[in-house]
């Protein structure tokens, strides 16, 4: 006989429109919850502020990725053309003054490295890929990527309580409030 216990993951509540979700998010933020999230079918502008999220730190990663790309291109071209195997072609010298001829490659590798850093930093910050998630156990989670606007308050939030949170979500206009449980060990 299976002895698995269900562990509560979150309360999931649906809101009828973008505006309703926006207002509700402000209330959840002001109520002092920290482990919670909004789920929307499209990127909703303004919701970050309503949730009290800070600006993404992604650009810092990309900056360093770009710098590494620039240095890689410079060293690759300079060391090989001037250091290891000086080639005097196209009337260009084999010294520091030949560097402008490397600009296109320096530009391209800067973009290449920055672009891949943006991708991987985004995945890292989102902790993706992750093919399973407790939320997928919800019977209405599939509507997030269709037309549903949801707020989930997670059980690991210190202010979470099984009764209180449900009432709170109902009070701020949530519908179809669902207790999402994951298989515990």
């Amino acid at each position: 006989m299976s002895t698995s216990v269900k562990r509560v993951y979150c309360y999931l509540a649906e809101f009828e429109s973008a505006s309703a979700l926006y207002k509700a998010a402000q209330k959840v933020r002001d109520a002092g919850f920290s482990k919670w999230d909004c789920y929307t079918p499209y990127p909703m502008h303004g919701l970050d502020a309503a949730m009290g999220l800070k600006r993404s730190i992604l650009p810092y990663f990309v900056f360093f990725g770009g710098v590494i790309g620039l240095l890689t291109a410079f060293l690759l071209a300079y060391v090989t053309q001037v250091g290891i195997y000086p080639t005097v072609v196209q009337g260009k010298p084999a010294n520091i003054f030949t560097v402008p001829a490397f600009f296109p490659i320096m530009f391209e590798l800067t973009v290449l490295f920055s672009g891949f850093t943006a991708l991987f930093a985004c995945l890292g910050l989102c902790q993706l890929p992750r093919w399973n998630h407790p939320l997928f156990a919800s019977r209405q989670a599939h509507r997030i990527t269709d037309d549903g606007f949801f707020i989930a308050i997670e059980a690991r939030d210190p202010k979470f309580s099984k009764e209180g949170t449900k009432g709170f979500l109902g009070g701020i206009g949530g519908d179809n409030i669902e207790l999402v449980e994951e298989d515990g060990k």
Partner: protein
Amino acid sequence: MADTATKTTSEAPAPREVKLPVLEREKLVLNKRSYHWITERVCGVVENKQPMVWWALFIPTILMAIIGVGGGLIYLVTTGVGVWGNTNRVMWGWPIVNFVFWIGIGHAGTLISAILFLTRQNWRTSINRAAEAMTIFAVICAGIFPAFHVGRVWMAWYLAPIPNANAVWQNFKSPLLWDVFAVSTYFSISLVFWFLGMVPDLATIRDRCKRGVKKALYGIFSLGWRGSNRHWSHYEMAYLILAALSTPLVLSVHSVVSFDFATSIVPGWHTTIFPPYFVAGAIFGGFAMVLTIMIPARFFYGLDDMITMKHIDNMAKIILLTGTIVGYAYLMELFVAFYSGAKYEMAAFTYRITGPYWWAYVAMMSCNVLSPQLFWFKRCRENLWVVMGVCMAVNAGMWFERFVIIVTTLARDFMPANWKYYNPSWVDIGLFLGTIGLFTSLFLLFLRFLPCINIAEVKWAKQESDVHFDDKKAHPDEGTVVEASYQHELDNGTAEV
């Protein structure tokens, strides 16, 4: 003051209610379609049985690809590049014409995704996915030609910056090597951009699938996306940065391609106008190809409410603008050749227009400069047959432009003893037709398996997606009064912030 002035005027009109003009934005999703309708319609393209026309196009094009590209390349590699029509003088010939043609088509995708994103042109949302896919496929077609044009394709790895047996490194000062970096970077970044943009939509398809292999595959490629706003926040930032990176990238790629020509001392190529002229031409040709593909797709899959006449109108205007820029560049080239006083330069251009390749010049001028002028007229932009006709003309015209630049210039250089009329071989023609088949069949596979419209962004572009939409809806004029009074309060410092 104003009051007294009004009173003194004897025939002052009676005060009446002033109705403020409300400038409505043209809607990007017509007929008040719901979010669910958008999901259904776009996913339906993937989930439903394909229309007969899909098979009617796919079977011939995949055969063209297999025979033209597959067979052509096998014959080429096993026999040698001599089977091409390239001659001692016209050493670039059709292969490089085709390369520049395809790489040019690949420009509209990233332009639509990146530049129109940065300039907040929200109409891009319903066409950017297909345009990006087109970019990827066009660059694949383009890449075939230079890779095999090196002669011994098994030596193509010499282009990669890795030490080889002779310890000779690549010449990083050469525009040809810049091209390797530019095109491969462009392909990689376009792929990243395309994929990242597709992740939320792949999740939509995943959530609609029943259990099985299909669900597992969409699940893997959607990376476990679950629409969390904490994710959207990073995602939007990554997308913005990729757009900002791609904007100079897209301009750089065709500039670098033009350097292949412009840095040489061949009369007719050695001009500073080449980079902007090539970039404008690429955008021009790319948009024509987007319309060529999207108008039938819109018709057969019933996407009219998302790809509206407004979109087609906008793209037609861009074609008109860039086509006119290209026309300006053609004329400016002639003027500069005349003004330079260099007799070889003048001879090259006289030869282009009056020489044995005059037909290519006429085709280029009439297709690229004259035919888009129809788009000055609204009636032409609204008639899809005219739009399709012009786009087809532009597609052909852009190929002729590259032919004019490459073949007519090379066919006659400084040494009259080298002058010879260039003819393509049947392998040239087969390979080119093969790439058309490859491009079309890849695009049809894309329509079959991937969301062809950016579902999330089209939803975002709807008016009710604005978080303040309800506040506006509470008033009959949809919010102008609320906003105006709020602005008034802000000005007076009485607003609650």
